[in-house]
């Protein structure tokens, strides 16, 4: 058994003079479900591509299953299933052709190909160019999962999928991780990471700025509460909500509160008055960044 499945030590990648990632250090242990969070352009995909030997690092080292990812890493990739953020497939061929192609490269058909196609309701007989974005994503998931890899590297895996299929994908991922598969999930969607990950690294401007458990992250994350009461909002109601960073009145009967901590206390305080409607939203990742790591102009949401 490996001590670590992924280990990066000072991993750095520059594209000419442009920074991709810089001095990135983190590790993922066997069976761990690890989220890799950051806005677009933060360096998530660059990190993954360095791990898969597609990019040559400028500095530092990367290890998979305790072996250094060198110039090749061919045998290491046998144990990995990968879904790219921007799925690219052979457009003129059918889904089945793609599945057979990957099976050929891996030395045999996948053990769970048929089951995956059925669960994702994916018809492999159609040509890739005729598939919707969601169906292309399904095909990418099938070819990543069909050989039951030890490590799953998923870069925005639910991109383009409708909520029902997102549910199926997360069910499959949860089954795999329960069975011991290590998951490295790159995403900028907090709810996606919250659902499956135990631990996360937050990457900003090519550097890991925080690495902590999801529980800790969520305790510290902002939530936006939008409430409509059945009676007019009073100043006392606004002042009585604990843990807020801001509360705004919306018309005569509504308010929007940004809750930084103690969501339970805030909701209890709100529920003191009869409500017509309530909606609680997680803060976006960008908002979490702005709250905990300070805003650096031009960096977030690149």
């Amino acid at each position, binding site marked *: 058994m490996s001590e670590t499945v992924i280990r990066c030590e000072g991993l750095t990648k520059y594209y000419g003079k442009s920074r991709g990632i810089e001095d990135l250090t983190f590790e993922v242990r066997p069976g761990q479900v690890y989220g890799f969070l950051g806005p677009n352009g933060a360096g998530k995909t660059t990190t993954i591509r360095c791990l898969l030997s597609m*990019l040559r690092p400028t500095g530092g080292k990367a290890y998979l299953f305790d072996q250094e990812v060198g110039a*090749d890493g*061919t045998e290491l990739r046998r144990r990995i299933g*990968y879904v790219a953020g921007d799925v690219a497939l052979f457009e003129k061929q059918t889904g089945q052709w793609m599945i057979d*192609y990957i099976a050929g*490269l891996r030395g045999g058909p996948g053990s769970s190909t048929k089951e995956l196609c059925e669960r994702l309701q994916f018809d492999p007989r159609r040509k890739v160019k005729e598939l919707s974005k969601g169906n292309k994503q399904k095909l990418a998931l099938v070819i990543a999962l069909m050989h039951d890899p030890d490590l799953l590297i998923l870069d925005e895996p639910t991109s383009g999928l409708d909520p029902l299929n997102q549910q199926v994908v997360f069910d499959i991922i949860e089954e795999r991780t329960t069975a011991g598969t290590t998951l490295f999930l790159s995403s900028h969607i907090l709810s996606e990471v919250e659902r499956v990950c135990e631990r996360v690294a937050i990457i900003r401007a090519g550097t890991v700025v925080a690495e902590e458990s999801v529980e800790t992250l969520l305790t510290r994350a902002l939530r936006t509460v939008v409430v409509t009461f059945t009676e007019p909002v009073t100043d006392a109601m606004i002042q009585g909500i604990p843990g807020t960073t801001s509360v705004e009145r919306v018309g005569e009967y509504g308010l929007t509160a940004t809750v930084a901590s103690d969501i339970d206390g805030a909701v209890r305080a709100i529920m003191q008055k009869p409500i017509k409607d309530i909606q609680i939203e997680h803060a976006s990742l960008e908002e979490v960044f702005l709250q905990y790591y300070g805003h650096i102009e031009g960096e977030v949401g690149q």
Partner: protein
Amino acid sequence: MNWTIFKASLTLRRISLAWYSVGLIAYGWMIIAFFPLIAKNPAYTELAQEMFSEEMMAAFGGAGLELTTLGGFLGIEYLSLMWVLIVGAAVIIFAAGELAGAVEDGTMEVTLAQPVSRVKVALTRYLAMAAYAVALCLVTTLSLYLTGFIHGVDVPPDAMALLFVVSLVVALAIGGLAFMISAMTTGGGHTIGVSFGVMVAMYLADLLGNLNSDYAWLSKLSLFHYWEPHRIVDDLEVAPSTWLVFAVAAVAFFAAGMYAFQKRDVV
């Protein structure tokens, strides 16, 4: 060599291979069909000599050639320039798609995420291009031989066998050049543009060298200078420099391409 990649590369190009083959057969057939008319009527030759200046003959790779011999006629009308254009375009476009094009459209990422090494991917795709070139050269020579049979033109089989081998080395040199550029660039369009640019530069260098003896040295820098199909067809001869230049170019471009592909980022 990876059989899955080899098969996939050729499968993806089967339609283009068919079209290039149709083009080569049609063009070769037309040339062979015309040859008896030219060979048996000296008036046509005289007319051609009046119509086409020495410069124009040189421009079509036919400097100093006779239209009345099969090798001369094939050289001027087909093999020296038109064949190089058709087969050159085919192998350049193939090589461009195999590395740079695959990096550009993202399919290289899908392939390299699997347990297959870059060396194997690049080598296999080169071999697929070589197989494609073999098919085109075979179509070229077989179509000349068979249409010669139909039109009563004596196309020597041994000359066609030799032409097949030499033309394959020529195609591999041009394809190797494109393979090397493809390994260094991102985007099939870049590879095609640069490769054709180099081919045009070599063609112009050869042309200038043929037209003006002061620039004869320039001609020697061009691959076109060493491609003498008329000598193969008429005399069953291949200059040692032809073998040497094309073989060295093919091997050197291939090796440089393999090296470059190992070093580069592939996304």
